[in-house]
């Protein structure tokens, strides 16, 4: 404290602070409880949990509408920092149990499609359309960015398609890793360890690269 004050001002500040004193503790505590109670009422609740996988820790977050975030290969704090800043966070493994079970089955190679309610309301209609299209790619198959753009009726939008896929909030659940570049290279991947993770996922699904 007093970092921005000159020497003369510090003397004034000390004098003033002792004169005006601090706010009384009881109303301050009451006010804090009141603001927190209000926040609990208005802020959307996001429950989250984590599981271990061959690609590192996988984090899953759900809100009342469905799964809203999946991420892996990052630190817990990084994952939480990317969630809606207005939401109230709660670590609740039971709330994410269904998603975790399906992800476990995925990593065990027992299932490659997901049956989960998802919340993509923070995305633009174009981003949602791109991710919907990516969901149509069967496991073991790969499409190019250009093909996804063509399926959307916008054949010249390969680059925006790539950007929309890069911002996929639900990697693995929405299989953006099944989209590769036209020259046969893997293109890009923002999940976990990047292209290494993408290659690993495609191999798990039996895709021929």
């Amino acid at each position, binding site marked *: *404290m*007093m*970092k*921005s*004050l000159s020497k*003369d*001002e510090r*003397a*004034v*500040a000390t*004098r*003033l*602070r*002792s*004169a*005006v*004193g*601090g*706010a*009384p503790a*009881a*109303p*301050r505590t*009451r*006010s*804090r409880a*009141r*603001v*927190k109670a*209000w*926040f609990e009422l*208005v*802020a959307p609740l996001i429950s989250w949990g984590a599981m271990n996988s061959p690609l590192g820790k996988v984090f899953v977050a759900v809100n009342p509408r469905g799964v809203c975030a999946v991420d892996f290969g990052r630190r817990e704090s990084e994952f*939480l*920092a*990317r969630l809606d*800043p*207005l*939401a*109230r*966070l709660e670590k609740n493994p039971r709330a994410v149990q269904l998603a975790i079970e399906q992800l476990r089955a995925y990593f065990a190679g027992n299932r490659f499609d997901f049956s989960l309610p998802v919340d993509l309301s923070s995305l633009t209609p174009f981003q949602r359309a791109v991710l919907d299209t990516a969901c149509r790619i069967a496991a073991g198959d790969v499409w190019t960015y250009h093909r996804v753009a063509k399926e959307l009726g916008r054949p010249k939008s390969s680059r925006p398609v790539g950007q929309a896929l890069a911002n996929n909030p639900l990697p693995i659940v929405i299989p953006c890793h099944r989209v590769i570049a036209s020259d046969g290279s893997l293109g890009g991947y923002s999940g976990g360890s990047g292209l290494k993770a993408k290659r690993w996922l495609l191999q798990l699904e039996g895709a021929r690269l």
Partner: protein
Amino acid sequence: MTPRFEDLIERHHDETFAYLWRLLGKERQSDVALEAEDTTQEVFMRAFESYLGLRRDSNYRAWLYKIATHCAYTKLRQAKTRREQSLAHENAAAESASSSPRESSSAQLRKLVDALPAKQKACVTMRYVQDFDYSEIAFSAARNRVFAPMFIKRFGGCAPRSRRIYDEITFKR
């Protein structure tokens, strides 16, 4: 990265409450604490509504103080009766300022601060009690960086009296 609103409450609630308690308090009437509680909640409600529109590199503390200062002004304006009483207090305090000795007691000093006009009181509190620099004060209460020191030293139509009180507070008289 935008900080979580939850963390903002955790980090800044107490100082926001204390700031409002100081701004709204005149002679520390018993209902000031209740009014400060109300206003603190209002500050966070307003902040919640416009939080996502804020730039990521914003000074969140100064922004909260800006909202708090505006809420306090509104409260002071709305409570017309209270304001009239406050004016009476100001006059009384100004009189005591002119007659008080240099080594005023804490109570007299408190009266002097309470006697300042709302905007000047906000600036003085931010500068000396909350440790804001002039650019933060400018953002939260005054119009720009150049005006901020002036707002602290003399303000508005009641400049001579405010200046006298300010000099008293800062040992210059």
